[in-house]
């Protein structure tokens, strides 16, 4: 069962992501910000990461840079949750090593489609 780490400071979105992915058979880890996510990622080598950009303590972009420094996360797909107004951020995220993004708002179906793109 593929494992996914969902990172968002919004509990409701995190819950939606977790629920949707669990229902689809993925095992989901959760984190509320970049710092927490980094800890979880070190303890559990996950198959994909989905992370929000704007978060306290450590934002999504910094999280990606940090993850890419870890040997286990060199090639792991990392998806950013962005909004349409974040065009510049997509660039920074890509530069930091993001695989792709998912534009908010998204439906559970859209989330699953996107995850399937990287996990098959």
């Amino acid at each position, binding site marked *: 069962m593929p494992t996914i780490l969902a990172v968002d400071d*919004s509990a409701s979105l995190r819950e939606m992501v977790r629920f949707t992915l669990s229902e689809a058979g993925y095992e989901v880890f959760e984190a509320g910000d970049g710092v927490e996510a980094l800890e979880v990622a070190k303890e559990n080598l996950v198959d994909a990461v989905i992370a929000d950009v704007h978060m306290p303590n450590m934002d999504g972009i910094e999280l990606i840079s940090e993850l890419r420094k870890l040997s286990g996360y060199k090639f792991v797909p990392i998806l950013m949750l962005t909004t349409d107004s974040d065009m510049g951020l997509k660039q920074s995220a*890509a*530069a930091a090593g993001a695989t792709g*993004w998912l534009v908010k708002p998204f439906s*559970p179906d859209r989330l699953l489609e996107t995850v399937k793109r990287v996990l098959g």
Partner: protein
Amino acid sequence: MSIDLSRFHAVFFSESLEQLDAMEAELLKPDIESASAESINTIFRAAHSVKGGSATFGFTHIAGLTHVLETILDEVRSGKRPLDRDLVDLLLESVDCLRDLLRAGRDGGSPDETAVNSLQSRLNALVSGEPTAPAVATETDEQSGAREWIIRFRPHRHLLQRGNDPYRLLRELGDLGDMVVTSGLDQLPAFDALDPEECFLEWRIELRTERPQADIQEIFEWVEHDCDLEIEAVEASPEAPAAQPEPQAAPAPASAPQAPQVTDAGVGAHGSIRVDVDKIDQLVNLVGELIITESRLVSLLGTDAAGEMTAVGQALENLSRNIRDLQESALQMRMVPVSFAFHRLPRLVRDVARELGKEVVIEIRGEQTEVDKGMLENISDPLIHLVRNAVDHGIEMPEVRKQAGKPGRATIDVRAFHQGGNVVIEVTDDGKGLDPDLIRKKAEEKGLLREEGELSDADALNLIFSPGFSTAEQVSDISGRGVGLDVVRQNIQKLGGRVHLESKVGKGTRFTIAVPLTLSIIEGQLVRIGQSAFVVPVLSIVESVRFDPGQFRTVAGEDRLYRFRDGVIPLLELGKSWDLEHGEKTDEQMVVIVEWGRDMYGLLVDRLLDQQQIVLKSLEENFRRVSGLAGATILGDGAVALILDIGSLGVLIGDRRRHQRRRREREDEA
């Protein structure tokens, strides 16, 4: 898969309301106009987060508002727009409006559409006429028959290192229709020079699909800056031949992520569960019973066990200790930080100050001080009243302050701390202070002064707690409605607490509220009247003095008065009025002087006993409400002691005096 999104609504509402609180708290910081990047980021993130959730869960009004807010705040964040007072006002108004919308969503009410629309259009106007509709994810589905495409895809070497994989992209393309893929090996180096972490292959794909070009582009959307890509339509088509060569897109500037921030809005993520307050009360009650049984045991065993430590005595001592710990833990569960009562204050101060043209900052300290939940609910209103009062009456206009050599911006200091078994809250302003002479004059005009003796300054200050007293020259819109300080004091006293006032002309005023930590346990003074024990709450006691018959007099045959300090106070002989069998008079008789409102009165008791913690038992629940009694408790010897209700006894005295005065007046007329 179909998932009912409404299952996430409750979390969304509560977290969004928290975000709005955080946003409001930042906006209310005194120097918000020169706010730090960190502050602005917090505000931005709050709007951003609420927007994300509302758009996802289909709350269009909220999404609409937060979408514009986010745009505006992003401009503030990048220095394109100043965060001035007007904008802060507008943002605060938005916070209010969003809160209403969220609550309406949560509680099933209907929001004020007019207000929402008005706010939305004012916000829209601010962002230079940009049309604002939050993006809603829609899939375009324009069918235009099967067409053939030739796609050249040459990944840059680092493509793999961003978690992308050419194989996955090709597979997705294959899902669109029929395709033929040819690999190009031109770039492939000799085996010993081959770095397995880099990508050297390239592909030419012939694809036949009914799907629009946008779908093909979408597949490469994530890698368009990490590859050279050409998409060409083979057949001539009405659509413009869409080529998408994106040679060597300039590498995005190295990301400059914002410095890590430490937010103080700490949403406690450590494990907690919600428990019904009734259940906790039940537990506290049971512990109360345990304590009573335990003191019963101690007193039964007492004399035997005290001398030598018998095994039973030792076990009992352990039991006692455990019960105390249990009691503490049980009471702890009802404890919440006073910040729950404090968080409305900054907004209140700001709004009232703005309305009056005053400049006031509020400083809050000790907001983590814990107090019983029930107690907190009861001190919240009095506290708000005191703070509102301070801004309205205590603090001068900025010019007046400057003339007096004070900074134009006033400070209200709210501080909470524990002292003994009490929680103390101080509200201090650096305003004009209270002038005792002015108060005396005013009180005289209003006929609130009693004939008896000259009032000390301290007593004069206390006159402002009298019903119907107001020092403001004119009744203002702000504090002039309804509740006065008299009500504040009575409400605090009903909780077994007291309000204290200090003031210096020109310097400022401090109100101090002290209330017990909990409503279920009070520090009690045991007294004996006749054969019965009663409890007087210690916080109500001013002083206890030996009863001196020489200081006692009866006026008009009924009104019993006792000389105390420079004046006389009513004396309540509960032994007589409640017909308690009096033992023979001893010289141990005491007068316990208690405070109620701004009045004091004495209680004549036969003997002072111990002071101890009293577990309050409700009379209403176990018997019925009795005027003059606040409840009952069970003592170590199993006897029941009634707890005197200083408030209602005080009212009783007031009634009696008025009644007698009326009767005397009628007699005089006759």
